């Protein structure tokens, strides 16, 4: 990994009875697009605000380029934040909103003007520079907030739910747009979001948080393919989860059988779930032999099947009443509802899912 811009060491924070951060350690690399992902109340916003200087830690420290930020105030940190509400200054024109942070640095006037113009160009707001925030649409306001933060050229840009206030279509456009902008300005972005799709689309790496702890830090691909525990597995995309029992070198699923599997240190006899993505589940005709590499195969019945254009989603139920989701490409066969089939789970696609620490 390249040089860490931000290093968080053992961060703890509680608000009264609520533990917001329960020992968080993390490193964020230079130029990275990093996402803090988790359900509301998981501590992700507290962590972001701690980096920005808006919330002190009870324990632990935050290093920026190796130096402890300590209790320094927000205006002393070379870090800028884009707020969820955008927090634009309503009585100032777009141009003055963007120039505000540069004026605070007492830069020469022509430099301020040049940098403001440049940033307004980057976010495509040149024509609206003399409007007030009240005259802008949600998407335009979002871009003003972004321009105002990046014009300071911070070491790290913090984005608190940057797209939450936009409607769905605009949100998807802006995901790509933010990613493009991050490349263009070459800043380190740390974004907080509760939307796993958003995190997967934009981020180079994602930290999944729950109850003040980090469950896993990984690239979107690794997070999807190798979730560290049951919560991560179900939070990121769809995952079929089967409850089993850990064995000495794998997992046993009653009554189907037993396979060798890297079991993440679960003690033999302890409960251990395994997961498999719907696109890895293979559905076969009732009498067909399972293909090589199959870990488990068992009979089931097709419950519902949906043709969704590029994909076919099928829901089957086995003899024990467990439901499995299976996704096949549009070229695949669409099975009749109520028909019998065999579910085959390839060994290579199975992931051991410990209960997790949280």
């Amino acid at each position: 990994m390249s040089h860490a811009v931000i290093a968080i060491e053992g961060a703890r924070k509680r608000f009264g009875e609520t533990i917001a951060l329960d020992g968080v350690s993390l490193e964020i690399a230079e130029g990275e697009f990093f996402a803090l992902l988790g359900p509301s109340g998981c501590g992700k916003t507290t962590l972001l605000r701690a980096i920005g200087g808006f919330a002190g830690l009870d324990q632990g420290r935050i290093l920026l380029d190796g130096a402890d930020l300590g209790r320094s105030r927000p205006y002393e940190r070379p870090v800028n934040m884009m707020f969820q509400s955008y927090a634009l200054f309503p009585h100032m024109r777009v141009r003055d909103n963007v120039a505000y942070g540069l004026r605070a640095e007492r830069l020469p006037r022509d430099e301020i003007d040049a940098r403001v113009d440049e940033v307004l160009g980057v976010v495509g707001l040149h024509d609206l520079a003399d409007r007030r925030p009240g005259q802008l649409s949600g998407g335009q306001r979002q871009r003003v907030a972004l321009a105002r933060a990046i014009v300071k050229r911070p070491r790290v840009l913090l984005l608190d739910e940057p797209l939450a206030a936009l409607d769905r279509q605009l949100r998807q456009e802006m995901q790509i747009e933010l990613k493009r902008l991050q490349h263009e300005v070459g800043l380190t972005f740390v974004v907080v979001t509760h939307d796993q799709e958003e995190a997967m689309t934009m981020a180079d790496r994602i930290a999944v948080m729950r109850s003040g702890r980090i469950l896993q830090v990984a690239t979107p691909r690794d997070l999807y393919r190798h979730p560290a525990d049951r919560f991560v597995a179900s939070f990121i995309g769809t995952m079929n989860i089967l409850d089993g029992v850990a064995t000495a070198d794998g997992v046993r699923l009653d009554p189907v059988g037993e396979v060798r599997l890297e079991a993440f240190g679960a003690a033999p006899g302890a409960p251990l779930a395994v997961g498999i993505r719907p696109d890895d589940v293979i559905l076969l005709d009732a009498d067909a032999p399972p293909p090589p590499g199959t870990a488990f195969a068992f009979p089931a019945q097709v419950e519902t099947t949906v043709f969704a254009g590029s994909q076919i989603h099928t829901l089957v139920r086995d003899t024990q009443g467990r439901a499995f989701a299976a996704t096949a490409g549009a070229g695949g066969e669409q099975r009749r509802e109520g028909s019998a089939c065999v579910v085959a789970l390839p060994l290579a696609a199975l992931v051991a899912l410990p209960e997790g620490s949280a």
Partner: protein
Amino acid sequence: MGEPRRPLLAAYMGALFAFLYLPIAILVVLSFNDSKLATVWRGFSLRWYEELFRDTEVLLSIRTTLVIAIAATLLSILFGTLLAFGIERHTRSPALENGIYLPLLIPDVVTGIGLLSFFATISLPLGTTTVIIAHSVWGTAFAAAIVRTRLRGFDRSVEEASLDLGVREVPTFLRITLPAISPGIIAAALVVFTLSIDEFIIAYFTAGQTVTFPIQVYSMIRFGVTPEINAVATVMLLFSMALIVGAYLIARPRGPRAARPGEGPA
């Protein structure tokens, strides 16, 4: 438009408006009456206004009242704004919160007696100063209530954004917070000023030998309603109307802020 005419309703409406405004209209008309008797019309004249502006006692009382109103307004918005911040941001105690508004509900007579005994206890001689203090008591409560409403609708992350962009707390307050709540402060100032100008009861208790404008009018009226009183009342009416219009002009939404057709948000 398509509403059927309802003569009874219209008549009722007319009667109601007459009830509300006729006394004031009569007062204004009679202030231009060229007669020593306040109630008999003898022709148009400005003589009572001339008399009024030669009446040094009246002029002095107006001056006293303006001094009191301005001082009480300044004190009230200073302490009221601070109080609003304290209550809104630094406490969750409902008792403390309601404690602010209580002075508005206490009968003026009680407040007046209370202040009178208080000033006597601390041996503060009655006069302009004591009236200023007295008016600041409920003025502060009013200002706190008004500013607080404004503060409640204020997104604090706007202040945080200013800190984040490199501006310290005090300049942030001056450049961001104050402009945002200033309509509330101006409204509070106008309310307190208007109330102070015609406040009689508390001033009567706490003024000592000092004569405020309402007290002056009261003492004039004891010798009967003269046309000069009508002129005084008319001047006062104009003055408070001007204040209200001023308040409206300051508080109304600015024209260019609303998007015009054709250039609205895309």
